[in-house]
Every structure is written in structure tokens, then in C-alpha cells.
């Protein structure tokens, strides 16, 4: 391999080669699995939530390099956030933290946002008592 000629920038490549938080959480409080109809990628995010805070996050991804990097980065970013903060998470945060993605690959970061939201919704569905405390209204199911 060459250091200089890679398809993605060095942050993306690093997250692709050494993904953070890869795997499943044994006793996940919320799990979201979403797919992108356009490209066929599938992403799954599991969350451990305690006292309204995301304590831990894991991902599994079937998809291209930038999809893997996006889910790795998304789980990194989300850890420690409150549910409310997490509900306001957008794909742009992933793109920025990765130092940019090729235009044709922006949808990978969108998928990461969607997987996270799906996991949060799953948590809220299972814990209806939390819903009333949310400042952000729950988004319509994808």
C-alpha cells in the first residue's frame, strides 16, 4: 500500500482499518438496523443507555469503506451524550469529524445517523417513560 494514494483521507482510512466500537452489546438497551436502498449498505447500532445518557455504543456494518468509517465515527461521537443531544445528532458531524467524504459517499454518514436514531427509537419504545421527558419530539419512524 502507498501512504499517499488511498481512496479516502487518512482519518477515514484509519477508521476503516481500525474501526472503533465494532461489535454488538450483550444487553443493549436499544438496537437499530437500517439499510440504504440506493447502494444496499446495512448498518446496525446498539446502545447502552443509563440515566438518560449513552454509556456505550457498538456498530456492525455491511457496506463500503466509508460506511464502516462513518459508523465507527458515529459511535465514537455519540458516547456520553444525553438522549436529547443524541436525537439532534446529524450526519454532518460525522462528515466533519472524518475530515470530509467524497460527494457520492455522503449517504454513508446519513445511514449512520439513521441507525443511531433507530436505536434511540427502539430504546424509547422499550422505555415509554423516557419519551415524556424528551425535549426533542420523537421523529416519525423511518
Amino acid at each position, binding site marked *: *500500500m502507498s501512504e499517499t494514494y*488511498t*481512496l479516502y483521507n487518512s482519518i477515514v482510512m484509519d477508521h*476503516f*482499518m481500525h*474501526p472503533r466500537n*465494532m461489535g*454488538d452489546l450483550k444487553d443493549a438497551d436499544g438496537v437499530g*438496523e*437500517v*439499510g*440504504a*436502498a440506493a*447502494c*444496499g*449498505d*446495512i*448498518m*446496525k447500532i446498539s446502545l447502552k443507555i443509563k440515566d438518560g445518557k449513552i454509556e456505550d455504543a457498538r456498530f*456492525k*456494518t*455491511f*457496506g*463500503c*469503506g466509508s*460506511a*464502516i468509517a462513518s459508523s465507527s465515527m458515529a459511535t465514537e461521537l455519540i458516547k456520553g451524550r444525553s438522549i436529547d443531544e443524541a436525537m439532534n445528532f446529524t450526519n454532518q458531524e460525522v462528515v466533519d469529524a472524518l475530515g470530509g467524504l467524497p460527494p*457520492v459517499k455522503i449517504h454513508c454518514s446519513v445511514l449512520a445517523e439513521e441507525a443511531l436514531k433507530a436505536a434511540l427509537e427502539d430504546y424509547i419504545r422499550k422505555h415509554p417513560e423516557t419519551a415524556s421527558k424528551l425535549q426533542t419530539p420523537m421523529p416519525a419512524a*423511518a
Partner: protein
Amino acid sequence: MRHVYLDHQAATPLLPEAFEAMKPFFTEWFGNPSSLHEHGLRVREALKHSREQMAALIHAGSPDEIFFTSDGTESANLAIKGVAYANERRGKHLVVCATEHPSVINSVEFLEKQGWTCTRVGVDAEGHLRLQELRDAITPQTVLVAVHHVNHDIGTIQPVAEVGRICSEKGVPLYVDCEASAGWLPIDVDAWGAALVSFSPHRFYGPKGVGVLYRNKKARLVSIIHGGVQEGGRRAGTENVPAIVGAGVAAEVARRDLEARIAHTRELQVRLWDGLEKHVGFIKLNGPRPGPDRISTNLNISTEFIEGEGQLLLCDLNGIAVASGSSCVSKSLKISHVLAAIGLDHALAQGNIIMTLGRDTSVEDVDYVVQTFARIVEKLRGMSPMWDEFQRGIIDSVIRPTGRGKSFSQHAADVSGKSAH
């Protein structure tokens, strides 16, 4: 780290002897072949020699039937549009194979916008053109039948000689795109009864920047790039002399080494596929098995539960250069229309990798690829929710169905809310 280049379908290194032959034409013999003085006449001779070398490679009757273009794409455009425009008054119908390269398919689509109609003939699960369907597709308005020799994606060798017989029976000219076969398989334009044949020497160790179109003297063809009277009035524009010279050398070497190249790559192809099949589970070869129906250089494989780009990237990081999807259009990241045409399950089309061998590939290279690829697949499956869900019986395998769980496509549709295909 070992470096193994397995993307010979996309590009090949220039032969040193071709480069040597080209050198003087850059700075010393730099004339324009249209010039009437010494500088022009010298390079005109060189073009003539290259034309002879090309004619010999494909058993053309005369070097005058060889036209130089800029690449395989332009040759395909010229063949399709040049014949269509030349025969406009006779009829406006074309017949092509559904798995032609985009340079053919998109040329045809362009003509369709201009009032032509086209029948796309289907293929079987291994990519073989359906001969009866082709025969039935030809009408009195048909002015051209286009069938590739070897599929660029899955390596299927088409029954070109049979197609040629049907075409001559029906009196319709046949165009054969030999881009994926020239230099790697014998080509005999006369035996096939082909009116037009195209190929590009950069696929067999010639330089980039030159394509070839053979046209039988009897076939009507008009130019599509208009201007001066170069190439017998069929391709205007200053000829790329050094590349044409190098291409001639590459053609000559290819002709000389053809048998050896086939034997060498066939051996490695079998070894590579056997190794992969043994060390990587849930893997499928697309197109025919190594043998008379498949070109010796190409392996198109689908690895289940993981996606192609990740495989490609990890291969690259391990020094292995491969392609995914349709090598020529991988930028678009779309699943190749060839895989769609053979009816490949979406789950398998997603995990597609193309490995193409060359004359410099070695046994050690192949063994390194088998080992490395097995590790890569393991790593990616470890990250894949689909692999996990297969283990847990939620989804099933397409390659080795267990009878448990729903299909990948169904699952993908469920989680994305839309059908995956």
C-alpha cells in the same frame, strides 16, 4: 509486503520492447503523418507497419482494413454509429447482447434517442448469449448485430462463430467487441465472418491512447469524428504516432506469446479459484468454470455477507490490486448490468470482486492472494451484521441455503423500507 497486481482488465504495464520502439517517435521522428515531407513520410511508414501487425493479430485480409482510433470506447462508438449512419436508409434497427460493455450499450442508447430501435438479446446464468433469441431478433430492418467476444465482467466466451453464421445467413453485418479478448485469445475475423472488430492494445501490454477498428472492405462505415482525411477519411485528427507504433509491437508479441500466455494464466486461474473455494466459505464464481467457455485471465467472484468495496480496499492495503463490479464503471459504484443480466442475487452482486491475471503473475502471487483474501473476508464478516444474522438463523445463505431464515434481499428490504434491487 508482496505486491500483486490482479487488475489486468483495467490496465497493463507497457512492454519494454514496445516502449523502446516508441521512444524515437516522441522527440526525433515527431512528424505529422499528413505532411508530405520527410518527417511526415517517415511516420507514415511506421503507421503502415503497425497496421500490418494489427491485421496479423486478428487474421485480417489486408492492413487497409485496420483503422486507428483513440481507444476501445471510440472504436465501439465508431462501429455502432458509423454503421448505423451509413445504413440509415436501409433500416434503423440494431441487435446487441444485453451484456455488452457500456461503450456499446450507451452508443445504442444514443441512437435510440435519434430514432433507431434496438433489441437486447438476453443471456443465461453463465452469461452465454441466447442464440435462438438473437436469430429471432433480426428483422429486415436490422443493419447491425453487435456481440462481444469475451465479457469484460464475468469472462464468458460468446459463441461468436455461430453468431457469424446466423448473421451471414441473414445478410446482416456482425460487429464483435474484442476488447476483453484481444491478445489473450485467438481472433480470426474471416473465420467468424465479422464485418467489424474492435480492441485496444492497452489491454495486452500496449500503450494507452490508441484503439483499433477492423472493418471488412465490404461493410459500409461513415466517420463519427469529422475533420481532415486521416485514416482513409474514417477518423479525422492527428494520429497518435508513438502509441500506434508501440501498439504494433504489443500486437506482434501477443501473437507470438499467445499460447504461452493462455497456458500460464489458465494454470493460475485454476489454482486461484481452487484456493479461494477451499479457504473462503460461501463464495461463488460468476460466469463459466475455468475451461473452454471462460477466458483464462478472469475470475469474477461473489463473497456472501460482505460488500465489495471493503474487500477491494483491504486487498489494496495488503498490496493486492483488484476491481469490483464492472471494472470500467466502478467509479459510479453501481452494480454491473452484467451481474443483473445473469440474474445474480442482489446479496451476491454486492460482494463482487474481479481478479484478472497477467503474464507476470506468479504461483506465489496466487498463493499469497488466497491466504490474504481469506483473512480479509474473515475480518469483514466479523464486522457484518448479515454474517451474524446468518449464524443466528435470521437470514439464509444464497450459496449454501440452510432453509432457516429469510433471504438477504428480504431482510435488506425490511430494514431499508424499500426493495433492495
